[in-house]
């Protein structure tokens, strides 16, 4: 479903600020894979996500989504294949627009936007049903501005928007990191159930090792722009936080640099 072959990216090349953010990333995801991604701050986790999404062009390498090379497609064209949820709850929704307007925009991802009316009554009914599944009481607030929602509600809505049109690949970049623990847990459960129900292929960056172990069928660890550890199946199920930390220092020759990962 996703293929990354020797993907490289250097930011600010040729300057003193040059940063080799991706140093040859290789990854192959099968349909239905749910991969969790961990790694220290600055390991390149978000950069991989952005490379796939086409936020900027990569320097070299191949990116295939569903067998199609997408390197030359701009971000808005790749959006056809991708659902994305970001760390910042503000980033995924339009605060000054209504809940139903946000959903209507998302319902047209990958489709031609015409001069037909922007939202149909059949859609409104559908949105109400879908929002009810979130169990946040949003189904009665279709015309409320998204800016009135809490961070958790906005992330849940972004998640719904990302999966409204089934994406070939769902990209979740620390999408619960800005939420309080209780809300984070709820959004994570929601994520799990949506991925399972729609049988989505997904990548989820998290700084929480327990979450990384508990969710998905595969786990990869990144360090300095490379994938240094990749487990799946039974081996992943048997992982412990201690084992992961040991693996990290063994593969990287360093202590795991994120306090957050240890604390949570």
């Amino acid at each position, binding site marked *: 479903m996703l293929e990354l072959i020797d993907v490289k990216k250097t930011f600010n090349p040729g300057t003193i600020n040059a940063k080799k953010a991706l140093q040859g990333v290789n990854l192959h995801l099968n349909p239905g894979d749910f991969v969790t991604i961990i790694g220290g701050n600055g390991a390149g986790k978000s950069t991989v996500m952005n490379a796939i*999404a086409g936020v900027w062009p990569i320097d070299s390498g191949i990116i295939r989504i569903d067998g199609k090379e997408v390197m030359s497609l701009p*971000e808005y064209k790749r*959006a056809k294949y991708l659902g994305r949820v970001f760390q910042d709850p503000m*980033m995924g929704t*339009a605060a000054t627009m209504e809940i139903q307007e946000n959903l209507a925009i998302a319902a047209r*991802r990958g489709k031609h*936007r*015409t001069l037909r*009316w922007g939202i149909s009554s059949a859609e409104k009914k559908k949105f109400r049903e879908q929002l009810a599944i979130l169990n946040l009481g949003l189904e009665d607030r279709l015309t409320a501005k998204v800016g009135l929602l809490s961070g958790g509600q906005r992330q849940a809505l972004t998640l719904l928007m990302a999966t409204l049109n089934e994406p070939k690949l769902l990209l979740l970049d620390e999408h619960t990191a800005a939420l309080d623990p209780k809300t984070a847990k709820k959004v994570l459960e929601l994520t799990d159930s949506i991925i399972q129900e729609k049988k989505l292929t997904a990548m989820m960056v998290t700084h929480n090792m327990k979450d990384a172990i508990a969710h998905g069928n595969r786990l990869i660890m990144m360090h300095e722009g490379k994938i240094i550890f990749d487990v799946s199946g039974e081996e992943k199920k048997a992982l412990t936080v201690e084992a992961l930390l040991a693996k990290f220092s063994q593969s990287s020759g360093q202590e795991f640099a994120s306090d957050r990962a240890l604390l949570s």
Partner: protein
Amino acid sequence: MLGDYFNSLPAAVAQGIMWGIMAIGVYITYKILDIADLTVDGSICTGGAVCAVLITNGQPMWLALVAATVAGMLAGLLTGVFHTFMGIPAILSGILTQLILWSVNLKIMGGANLSVPAARYNLLIARLDLNRSIIILEIFALVLIAVLYWFFGTEFGASIRATGANLNMSSAQGINTSLTKIIGLVLSNGIVALSGALVCQYNGSATITMGQGAIVTGLAAVIIGEALFGWLCRNNFALKLIVVVIGGIIYWVVYNTVIFMGLDSNLLRMTAALLIAVFLAAPHLKNKYFSNAAIAEKKALKEQQKAAKKESKKAGKNSGKEVA
């Protein structure tokens, strides 16, 4: 004396609607797209110039108005291309187009002004027939608002609104934000040029300076309308646009009143600009100094500083002991 004042009111209303139509154009860029577009100072004159040339050449009124609108759209297209494809910041893009239009407008008019006296040509609106002019202007404004209400409710229109509301979200949802920005600028400047065509008929001439400071007038209309009647609109887009036009009328009525009271009209632009500065700054200042969060933050900071002082005093004593 007071009679004179009241006699001048219909003129203020007519001007208010004309500039209110222009302010709708400003609303599209400033409020919907979140772009401060300075093209308008030039495109309003472009609209006036094209209209004046066609009328003086004996072309029909409808053609003059359509051509003026299209000319403004091209100006918006140029700004849009500067901004999106060439990556020039929006403000600078608008200023560049404005400079280009200065030359273009002079070329179109063949000089610094071109008169279209109502006595000689069959104009749509004229200073001497205010009642008729006001009715016609009202129709223009209402039809325009109806069309925009429809357009921004469509799938494509909604994607323009989304672009202004959240660029990141829009790209992630597959919106070509370069295209939506360009179309927004095209639409906006088309409307601005149309208002220029109306203004030139009202004034009986197009002049190269007719658009100078137009952006200030437009922003003033948007801001005045929103400040006074924003609460009435709830979420209704058509009402919001009507309020913009009302803002334009109020601006001109106030302008008239101020002049009537004998104030120096040279100071008007400055006063308007300062007023706009205050209105624009208000939300920022409120957030920064008067919101609950800001007040709590200040309190916390003070307490922190107090605690830190205590700590350092203690530490000072302790280290003193150690040394001893």
